[in-house]
């Protein structure tokens, strides 16, 4: 298949998806970008979001429209970009160097996120917020919502309350 045709073909669905997104969707994307950018301390959340879009537009990341909506796709691409940028061993070239803020062959990138999490925990420790700490623990294990709720005996609204509290603290403490 010809790449040029691909490009021409994919722009319209994306455009349609962009038009279809609600204000809250945009805000959701922005907030997700801000948190995911923790992994790459050099990168602002918005830069991460635009990088996800660039990759989608260039076809480097294909949007599987059948499986996920555009917001979910962009969050997934941002997650992947943040992960790879934080683990990258090479150096970016020349003028595109704003990403490699910390020597990429050292663990600083990953540690930047760890440091933020450490401070986040300290915040909840100080306030003796056991529930938030337990949720953080569960998140570190990669648990999904239902599992976390089942393990911690929380209702959906209780879990959401805790997550909101954690996110609010996180975003206030580490604005990106």
């Amino acid at each position: 298949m010809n790449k040029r045709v691909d490009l021409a073909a994919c722009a319209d669905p994306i455009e349609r998806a962009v038009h279809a997104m609600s204000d809250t969707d945009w805000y959701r994307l922005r907030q997700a970008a801000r948190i995911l950018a923790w992994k790459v301390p050099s990168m602002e959340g918005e830069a991460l979001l635009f990088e996800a879009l660039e990759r989608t537009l260039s076809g480097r990341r294909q949007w599987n429209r059948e499986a996920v909506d555009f917001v979910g796709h962009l969050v997934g691409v941002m997650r992947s970009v943040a992960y790879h940028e934080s683990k990258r061993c090479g150096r970016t070239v020349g003028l595109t160097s704003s990403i490699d803020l910390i020597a990429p062959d050292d663990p600083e990138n990953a540690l930047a996120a760890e440091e933020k999490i450490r401070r986040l925990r300290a915040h909840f420790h100080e306030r003796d917020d056991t529930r938030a700490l337990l949720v953080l623990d569960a998140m570190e294990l990669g648990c999904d919502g239902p599992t976390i709720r089942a393990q911690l005996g929380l209702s959906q609204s209780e879990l959401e309350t805790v997550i909101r509290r954690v996110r609010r603290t996180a975003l206030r403490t580490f604005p990106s």
Partner: protein
Amino acid sequence: MSMDDRRSSSDALVDCLADALTDEALEAEAAAAGEDIAGTAAVLRAHFLERVAAARSAAGRAQEPPREGAQTAKRPAGDDADAPPVIGRYPILRRLGAGGMGVVYAAYDEVLDRKVAIKVLRPSVADVDGRRRERLLREAQAMARVTHPNVVTVHDVGTAGAQVFVAMEFVAGVTVQEWLDAEKRSWREIAAVFRQAADGLAALHDAGLVHRDVKPSNMILGEDGRLRVLDLGLVGTEPREINETLPSGVSSSVNRLDVPLTITGERVGTPAYMSREQFLGVELTPSSDIFSLSIALYEALYDVHPFMAESYGKLQANILYGRVREPADLSMAPSWLYALVLSGLAVDPRKRPPSMHAFSAALAADPQRTHRRWIGTLGIAALATLGGGAISWTQLAPSEVACDGGDATMQALWDPSRAAAIKAAIVASGRPYAGALADRVNETLAGYVASWAAARRRACREYARGDHSDALYDARIACLDRRRQALEETLTILTETGAEVVDNAGQLVAKLPPLATCDDLTTLGQRRPTDPKIAGAVAALEGRLVRADALAHAGQAAQAIAAARAVTAEAQRLEHPPTVAAALLAEARASLNRPLPRRELADVLGRALSLALAEGLDALAAEAMIRRLYVRALLPGRSEGALEDLPLAAAMLERAGDPPELRALLLNNSGAIRLSAGDREGAREAFAAALAANERLFGADHLENAASLANLGMLTTDDREREALHARMIAIYEAHLGPEHPQTLDSRLLAALYTADPAAAAAALDDLCATFRAHGDRELARDCAFELGRLEDLRGATLSAREAFAAASAATPATSARRALVDAYLVVNAAERDPEALAAATAALRAVAAAVDAEHANEAIDWWIRLEQANRHLVLARLLLAADDAPATEATALLERALTDIDAITLEAPPIERERLLAACREVLAVALRRDPQHKRTGEVEARAASLNAAARAYFERWPDAYRRRLTRAPSPRRSP
């Protein structure tokens, strides 16, 4: 392993936190943060649509036939596929890369027919009012005013839709980061490249700009070898008004430089290279760029970040508090350059180099190069002036240099697992004392490791404070580095061959070169520079010599000599005389521990001495001279000459700065030479001084002092003082090696032999012999039994003597010269006279005595050989006298010869040993004279015999209890005395 498996827990948590919330929750979040969801959405949507439109346009254009002459038609697919067809008036060739700040394309300037790089700055959602866009425009325009070979040329600045773009010089090359990553660069190459960077940044500063994002990936090295400073996106103006006009070619419509620009309070830059001021968000001055460039330079030189920490927060804290990490290997760059980098990293901007121009000048002012260039024409004072410029900020280095590079070095060498490995290797020898010895060895090593790290820290801090010069610091670090190498070799030998070198393990660690020498700034000699072409090879050879020394200390003399000789050969091939001299000296040091012919050894040392003198290597020459005098003194008839040359060695030592370890060596060897020349009192004084010097150098309880105490004890005439010295010697051996180590037991044997009271000496020996037998130490048990037998024989304790000699005989090889003497003693102490045994023992001992005489016919004989020969003659005479039919004439001659020999070594031989033998000889000679048919029983002969008896008796009567049997027994002409 899947990617998910490799994800860290922090990754998972961040991902969870980023997961979608309900709309209500998001709205609450926005409300709590005071953010406008609709506004945010509008800006983002607009930018997204703009990008989508650009992509669609690119896709459509890509399908059109290429325009004639436009290189855009040749754009490759892949990453370039999303590049817009044109930005401003520039057709895009391909995408070069993208980052958080924007995307960079290669483009074509159709007007001026040249290739350019276009950077399109990303819009920001936060830039609701467009201020950020304005700022970027102004900053890019500011860059365009700068024309300098080391700054990338900005051709144009403009806008394309909502985006700001900058068209600049297209540079084919690699970033400095890539250049550094490609291969190991010398400090000279690095300094030269960074000087270009400093020049470029200085030009920016002259234009009133601060770069604010100086880092290796923002500097590109063109294929023409010229460096250009890049990444204009972060460049900001200094907080002052700029009114210069723009160069032609820059769109006047966006010329807003007349508006004062201030970015105070906004944190921009790259955290790893950001200055303290950037982290604090205060106004940035050119000094901030000096700081960032110094971080990059430090990292390039030492391959480690100066503020490296295990977390981002700690990195930031290290920068804020100026906690500079000390490089593990300072030798990667000269100290003047280290000082310059440290000055650039000063916490207080006022303490950094005053300008980037000054920093650049300092980078170019390599004092060593100046040194070399002017050495032929200028005096030392002039050199100091010339070199001074480069280090003028040494005293301005950060106040809190961590100086922990030495700790990291030692941590890499020494940890509990290494100690365990050494213990396992030593214990594998199966020696009964191995466990205790291993613990003591590890304790000594741990102490050395701690002391080395402390010395390294001290050197670093004193240098950072500006307490001493670059040259002294270099010498100090080189001194410590040689000691680190010695430690490393010692650890390797112990780990790999601990079982083989177990008996010498204690000595090996004790022989680690003293660290105090490296703190003695007055005696540290400056190492001379090596031709850079062979510097690496020379350094490798020096490392091998360190190993040769360690092998020698481990008792592996043959391997040590072979290693040193191999280095000599290679150094000769390299035509590097200093290393040849050092290798010859190392060979000689190793040879001192084995019976190498002394003339050959003196020759090796002579060659080392000549080369060292020719090369002006004062310390090496002094050591060669000191050791050569010692070897010469042991050559027949040469002790007087060696004695006369001692002042020469002392003068050479002074010239070398009187290093304490060589001073101790000179004093010790001076004692040996004086003793060899018969000057016992002079020797005693020299040994006492050597002990004091060693105590100053190593401390009172160091293993090295034990040998000095032994030497001193042997020369001390006061019995109590000798006992005290030997007790101290034994205590040191016990502390370092354990009570059951052969060296400790040997020291106890020495102390017993030098115990004046024969009864006490016999009791001590009896006890020791039992210990040696219990340990299965055949050699020590044999020597002990022999000495005990002799003492008991002299005391008239025939039965005890017989038992001891029987034990000694059983442990002495039949081929040994000593065996004939032992067996002869057994025969003369036999309960019954056995003519056949007498004849056999006589023949055997006579043959050995003749062989020894023949071997030393043409040279002066060492005192201990004379003493042993006198002993043989005594026992031979006793065998002859014990044989009924033997003429006494031969016995008389033998005894007269023995007395002559003993007399000849009066000044050298230990008095206790000599007096005992003398008394025995006199007593037997008296018997022989009375029986000698050639000496008619004249009054004269009788008088001499009586005199000899009286003299012998006078000696025995000094310890009446010990010699009770001897004193109560009348001498019999027919019995063996």
